[in-house]
Each structure stands twice: as C-alpha cells, then as structure tokens.
C-alpha cells in the first residue's frame, strides 16, 4: 500500500539509491541472473539487477524468460531465500583445545556483515519475521542470527507479477508489503514509487531528495499489486488448517506422497523459514585442537532423527514428510504463534519431482475435514515454568575438573565434577548438560547429583563420544554447556505422595529428585521408590539404594528382568512392583525415567491406579544437540524436547507420547 507520502525515483537514477545504500560501506545484496536462475548475491551496480527477465515456475520447474523490457523486478522469486544471509548454511560455533588434562572451549563470534537486502518481497518480509521469532524463541536468542538481522537494511519491492507457484494470499503474507521494511519500492516502467517504513529508511529517503510521487503513479502501483492478488486467488484453504492437520496424522496420503517424495531435503533448504541445523566437528590429526560449525540440515535426512545406539525416531520417508508438513502448517503455531509457511512456493518449484504442497494439503487436510479430536493440547501447557532457560547462553562452555570416577556397571561410570560456576550450581533436578571433549560431538548427559561444589554426571558408554569421555580419569577436564531443559517439578508433589519409577540408567536423572524429597521429607506424603534393571549387574548406586531401603520413611522395591545366581530379589518388569499394590494413586505424583516403552507401560499402570495424567512425569530421550530449541533435532509434535522438556507430564504429551514416527 503506497501512500500519498511516497516519492518518485526515475529509473535512470536508481544508481543514486545504490550509492545511498552503500554510502556507509554497507554491501548490497539483491537479485541477479546466474546459472539459469535469479539468485541473491552481492550487487555492484544496478546493471547487475535482472532487468528484462521474468520467471515461469511450475511444480518441479523454474525457467527464466528474457522479455527485453526495462523493468528490473518482474522476476518473481529467486532460488535462494534471505536465510542464506540471516541464517547462513555454515556458521562457525566454537574452537576448542586439549592441553594435557585441561580443556578449553571458546565461542567463535564474528561481527555481522553490514548488508542492505534489496528486492525483498512481502512473503519474504513475513519469512524474516518468522525466522526472527524462531531464533529469538530461546533465552537470549541465537546471537549469530540476531546480529545479522539487526545489521541488515531491508529494501522491499511490491510484487508486480506472480507465478503459478505463488500462494502468499492464502498464507496472509502478501502480495502487498505492510510493515517490516526500511524502504519500499514499487516499480513502474519509468521508475519507482518509494516510501519509507522505518526511521532509518526515512533518513535514507531524505538524502535522495526526490520529488513527491504523483497520485496517478501511486494508483498505478496499487493497481499492479491488486492484479497480482487477483491472479493468485486463494489456492490453499488455510482457515482451520492447523487443527485439520492435527486430526490427520493417520491419513493414508502420507504413505502415497512418500512414494513420490525423494526425501532429498530441497523443500526445506529453499524454504525461507526452515531453520534446522546440525553441528560438524573438525579436528587436527591428534584431536587436540578442534572446531565446530553448524550447517543447514533437514528433517528429511535419515540421520536427523537418529540417536545414540542407532535408534531412529523417523525411519520412514512418510514420517519425515509428515514431520515437515505438520510442523510447517500446524505445530509451528504451537511453538511460535504463526504458520511456518509464507506461501512463497519455493518448495513447489524446487521439488525435483514436482510435489505440490498445496495439493498435498488439500488431500491430507481438506477444507471440509473435521478439526479434531486433537492429539495434544493446543499449546505447551504451563505445568511449571521453564525457569532455567532464561540464563543459558547457547555458546557458553565451562571447563569442569573430574575429581573422582566411580564405576557403576560394566559400561557406566559416575563422574564427580568440581565447578564454581553459579549457573551450573543452580541446576535443577532433571536438567541436563552437554558434555564436550574437543574433537567429539557433545552428548547430552543428565545431572545425577547437584552438590554445593559441583555436579555428578552418570554416563553410559553409548558411542565413541561417551566412550572417550568415560575413559577420562580424575584430574581431567571436560567442558559443560548448561544447565539445559526443564526439570522435574518436585515442588508440585509437596503435600502429596511421591512415586519414583526408574529403569536402568534412568535412575541417574531421578536421584536429584530423591535427594530433594528426602531433604524436606516431612513436606511429602508417602514416598515409594521402584527400581528396575536388566540384570543385577546393571543396578545403579547400589550402596546408596540399599541404605535408602533401610529407612523407615520410604519404601524401596527392586526388580530385575533377568536374575543371576546371586539375586534373591524379584524378577520381572518394573510395573510388577506395583500392579498388585493397594495404595491409592489419586494423591500421588509420579516421576518416571527409563526406556520409552517402560515409561509407557508404567504410565499406563499408574493411570489405572488413579494417578492423574497431569501428575505423571516422564523424561524423554531425543537427539538433543543445541539444547535451546534452535537446531530442530529433538522436535516432538509441538515440543522441542531439549527446551520444553526433557521432562513432560503425559497429559502435556497427549498421543505424542509413544507414537511411532513423530
């Protein structure tokens, strides 16, 4: 919507705009023709603009057409999106070093480049806004993104043409440019109607000293964009789409689209809002000096859903397609308050086999489909506040020295770590830390004891990184990042009975709960501790648990799946310990940790015993990498397990708990 306050820039003088934008050394990034497409790249002069080029797109096809016209912005969308500049494909994260027993991990931070983005369309402004909400959703936001976005000047262009893959009208992001730009251009044959959208834009416009735009000129630009709107129509029935998709998790169409889908990830990589990344590690030959960088990744690759031990949460292509589509159009609302799609149509054009997301949406969640019942609450329930989040800077690593190593089982040890870091010492039961050894990918490890002078970590060897970490001896250092995540809501159990159910190494994150409850024992009702293990040799903290069993103020029961000759206790699965019990569960709060199947079985038996689903708490294992909800690996329905969990009530999780392929 160009207003009467607009100015007019004659076409021959567009160089003045370039000069003004770059006057303070700012580099101009904008559209240019390269390799058979319009891409965003650095522009030296207006001659680099795609003047006289238009684009024709269709599912799986993108073609340039030379028109010979003087107009520079009649192409529709470049291949690249602005995320190449606001969320680059490669971003260095840390440099690290091992020097004897010492470990040093330092963040790598460069000053963001001063850029002017020229040619930003309405849908792309919306995408920049969405991306900003995603990358600022964490405590301090992603420093790299915030720096880049803040340093950029946005020069928008009103669309004067659309292509067959456009659907901004359905997603309510365009074609008219609203807010979010510093300057807005609308192109006419003879020049540009220009208006400012910010104080910075107004200052810039003032330096150009242009004549006011004539009302007729403004009207012609308004008519152009109105014609674009009419041309696009309303290709997607967006009203109620999030709810319809939630109800369509078992649609047969997922299987059908998976037959065509290549899972090549192109749709996510061209998407201006997809933000998932993974971390790559590089090191010298001895692993003594290392660096990490994050790089674009995608929920379409198999490795994205993989966790230690090679389990995979999304083994099938249909799982991955469903993850992408339901995230983009449904659970994105839960997480970030808007759709993740801006209707730019890049995913349609750049799909190598022409899968059209508009068609898939119409088939999977037709406008006439019922909108429920929904599989999980519409937004993460505020069972308790994610308090610790507010203080953790993603790149902050603290070196901590191992003061003692206690072997627990054949493959599990407990480290006692000394630290004076106030944030680590303020960790809450159920939180975790990322444990980094230079040259290795950092695994998430839950805290097994919070002491006044440090933390205990109980670590099982599940891959090369954990194997290398547990091979360290007393005196060695590791770097810790955290504490991360939302822990157990121990306070919610005050005045109630407490049930603690652990399977194997799952006792480690529960030990701080036991200690917190015992520290204020009179404030709780009956306390019952149920411990399961695969074999007697797999029991954790044996002496401590034996000591607890001797106490009169709590009940401890143990069971193993397979007994040995030395085992005189019970044999079977952990739910056998209480499926015949006579206590009333309605006054109890339960804290459960173990393999996902064990937690499902336990939760189900406890519900049967009257425990409220809002008071049954589990902690989930996922591929937690960034720990602050910006890399996307641990996504589960509307949740990031690392940030919204790892502790959840089964009421919050709804049917996302235990559902395959999410």
């Amino acid at each position: 919507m160009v207003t009467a306050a607009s100015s007019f820039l004659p076409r021959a003088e567009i160089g003045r705009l370039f000069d003004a934008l770059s006057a303070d050394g700012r580099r101009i990034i904008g559209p240019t023709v390269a390799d058979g497409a319009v891409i965003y790249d650095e522009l030296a002069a207006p001659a680099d603009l795609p003047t006289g080029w238009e684009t024709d797109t269709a599912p799986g096809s993108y073609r340039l057409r030379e028109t010979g016209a003087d107009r520079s912005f009649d192409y529709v969308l470049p291949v690249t999106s602005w995320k190449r500049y606001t969320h680059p494909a490669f971003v260095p994260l840390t440099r690290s070093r091992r020097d004897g027993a010492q470990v040093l991990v330092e963040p790598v931070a460069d000053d963001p480049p001063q850029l002017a983005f020229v040619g930003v369309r309405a849908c792309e402004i919306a995408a920049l806004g969405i991306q900003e909400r995603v990358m600022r959703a964490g405590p301090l936001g992603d420093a790299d993104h915030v720096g880049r976005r803040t340093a950029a000047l946005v020069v928008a262009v009103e669309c004067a043409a659309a292509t067959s893959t456009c659907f901004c009208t359905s997603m309510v992001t365009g074609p008219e440019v609203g807010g979010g730009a510093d300057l807005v251009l609308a192109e006419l044959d003879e020049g540009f109607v220009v208006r400012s959208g910010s104080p910075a834009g107004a200052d810039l416009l003032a330096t150009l000293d242009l004549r006011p735009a004539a009302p007729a000129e403004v009207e012609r630009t308004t008519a152009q964009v109105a014609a674009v709107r009419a041309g696009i129509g309303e290709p997607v029935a967006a009203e109620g789409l999030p709810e319809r998709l939630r109800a369509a998790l078992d649609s047969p169409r997922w299987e059908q689209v998976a037959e065509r889908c290549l899972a090549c990830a192109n749709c996510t990589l061209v998407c201006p809002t997809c933000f998932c990344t993974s971390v790559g590690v590089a090191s010298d030959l001895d692993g003594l000096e290392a660096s990490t960088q994050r790089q674009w990744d995608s929920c379409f690759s198999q490795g994205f859903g993989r966790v230690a031990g090679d389990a995979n949460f999304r083994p099938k292509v249909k799982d991955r397609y469903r993850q992408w589509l339901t995230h983009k159009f449904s659970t994105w609302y839960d997480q970030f308050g808007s759709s993740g799609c801006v209707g730019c149509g890049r995913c349609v054009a750049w799909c190598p086999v022409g899968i059209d997301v508009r068609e898939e949406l119409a088939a999977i969640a037709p406008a006439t489909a019922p909108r429920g019942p929904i599989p999980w609450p519409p937004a993460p329930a505020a069972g308790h506040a994610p308090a610790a989040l507010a203080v953790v800077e993603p790149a902050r690593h603290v070196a901590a020295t191992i003061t003692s190593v206690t072997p627990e089982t054949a493959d599990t040890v407990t480290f006692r770590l000394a630290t004076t870091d106030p944030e680590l010492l303020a960790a809450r039961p159920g939180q975790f830390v990322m444990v980094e050894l230079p040259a290795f990918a950092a695994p998430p490890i839950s805290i097994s004891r919070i002491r006044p002078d440090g933390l205990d970590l109980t670590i099982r060897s599940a891959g090369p990184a954990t194997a290398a970490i547990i091979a360290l001896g007393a005196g060695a250092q590791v770097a810790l990042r955290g504490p991360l995540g939302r822990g157990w809501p121990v306070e919610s159990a005050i005045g109630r009975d407490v049930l603690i159910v652990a399977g194997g190494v799952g006792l480690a994150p529960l030990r701080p709960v036991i200690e917190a409850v015992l520290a204020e024992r009179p404030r709780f009702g009956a306390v019952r501790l149920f411990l399961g293990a695969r074999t007697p040799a797999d029991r954790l903290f044996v002496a401590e648990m034996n000591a607890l069993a001797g106490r009169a103020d709590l009940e401890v029961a143990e069971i193993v799946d397979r007994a040995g000759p030395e085992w005189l206790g019970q044999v079977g699965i952990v739910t056998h310990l209480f499926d015949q019990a006579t206590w009333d569960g309605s006054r109890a709060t339960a804290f459960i940790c173990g393999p996902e199947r064990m937690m499902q079985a336990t939760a189900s038996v406890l519900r049967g015993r009257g425990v409220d689903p809002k008071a049954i708490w589990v902690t989930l294992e996922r591929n937690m990498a960034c720990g602050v909800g910006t890399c996307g690996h641990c996504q589960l329905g509307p949740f990031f397990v690392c940030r919204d969990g790892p502790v959840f009530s089964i009421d919050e999780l709804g049917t996302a708990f235990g559902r395959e392929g999410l």
Partner: protein
Amino acid sequence: MEPLQLITPGRRGARADSPNRPRIGIVKFASCDGCQLTLLDLEDELLAIADRVDLVEFAEATSRRSSGPFDVLFVEGSISTTEQVEEIARLRAVSHRLVTIGACATAGGIQAIRNWFELAEVHDTVYPDPTYVESLAQARPVSDFVAVDAELRGCPISPAQLREFLVAMVTGRRAQLPDEAVCIECKRRGVVCVAVADGIACLGPVTRTGCGAICPAYGRGCYGCFGPRESANTASLASWFSDSRSGPEVARLFSGFTAWSEPFRTTVDAHGGPPGQVELPEESHDA
C-alpha cells in the same frame, strides 16, 4: 554401516617410535588406482599422517610389502577373477578392520556394467584376442565376498572424506560421513538446481553426498558416483525422468559407476536395461 571405532584411548597420539601405531595396508583389485592415490592428495598432512600410522603395504607409495596382519586394510577395486576371490578372503582373515574405498570396491564400478551381458560377448568386443583373459562372469563389490567394516564412496573417493576417516580413526571418534542426498550439499553451497532450472537429468536426490556437489556446481547433472544414498527413491525419480525420456535413456542415466548397486540396478532393469543401448544427449548449461 557402523563407522570404524578402532583405536583405544591409549593409542591416542601414538608417534613413529611407538609400537602402538595402527598397521595400515592399502591394496587393490580390479580398479584404476585413483582412489589409493587420493591418500597422496592429502599433501599438506601426508607426512603427519604417515607419522601416526604404520603404512606397511601401499604399492603406490612405498616398497615395503606386507601380507598382514593389518589393523585396518583399505581395499580398492572390484572382485573380477577367481584369484581375487581367494585373495580377498585371505586378506579379510588377517585384517582387524576392512574398509572398501571407491565405486569399484563398494559397488562393482564401471566394469560391473558387463554384468548385464554374456562374458564372451564382452571379451570379443574389448579384446582382439581374448585367449588369456580369465574373468568371473561378473565384476562385483567386495562386500559380496567378505564382511566389510566401513566404506568410502566415490569415483574417486573424496580427499576430505578420507582425511575425516583417518582422523576419526586415530582419535577414536565417529567419522562424519553423511549418508544423505547430494542435494543437501548442493543447496548449502548455493548451487542452482540443474534439474529444476535446466531440466537436466540429475541423480543428486538419490545419490549419497560427500563429493561437494561438484558436478551440479559445474552445470551438469550428478551421475551417481557415490552410489545410492539412504532411502534412495529411484523409482520416483526414474518415473519423473520418464516424462521426457525413453526407457533406455532412463536406464542409461542410472548405469554409471555404481550401476550394479541396489536400487540403481533394479531401476536399470525396470526401464529397459541392459544399459548402454542408447547415447544420451549432452545435458549441461553454460556454467
């Protein structure tokens, strides 16, 4: 395939005077030697690597010879003769870990295209006098004969991946060898998709990355030298190609250096293989 986890922490940083350096061998079967030579391409770090491993068998670089045992044996080439069948079994028995390198060893290589034809027919085409040629009926990947612990793909393998593998081996970490599509690397690099923008047939969406997306970066389609990626949906891609190409043309597209590996092989068959029945038009744009 589980990446190699060989070196115990005690071996970290072992040097030339240490008896604990891993004994490494590099051998070849039916192949061109190009993959072995990739080791020599690691020029900047070659001496440092040689310091950390004990290279006991590598005919391209040293006159030392060894018949084993090996901590890690790198094997290049496909198995194409009866002698090679016996030799690979012997080598497997004396190797703690066996790693295949390159398209020939991992997929059968370009020579596996003869697997679609009668051996005599191929003999007569290639050799004027095939009297002394003794070949198996098929050229096949090493994994058809012995267990393989890890593989490095490509024709030839990538120096960066070889370096990553060696560093991971000596430091005891998991090598980062991606198994996803070339498209991911292509898009990270900012290469314009040749399939969508030019209509060029590109195997990138079904091919494992690791090459750096070299071919699309030069304006031509990927021809699959790293072989199939995880979840390679060749049926869908071939069906898309079929809209504008004949069956034999589609078969020809999938019959490159890794034609014999599944699911490329069945895709060749499904579209009128054997391969090589048609000449493909040159498809590239002026990069």
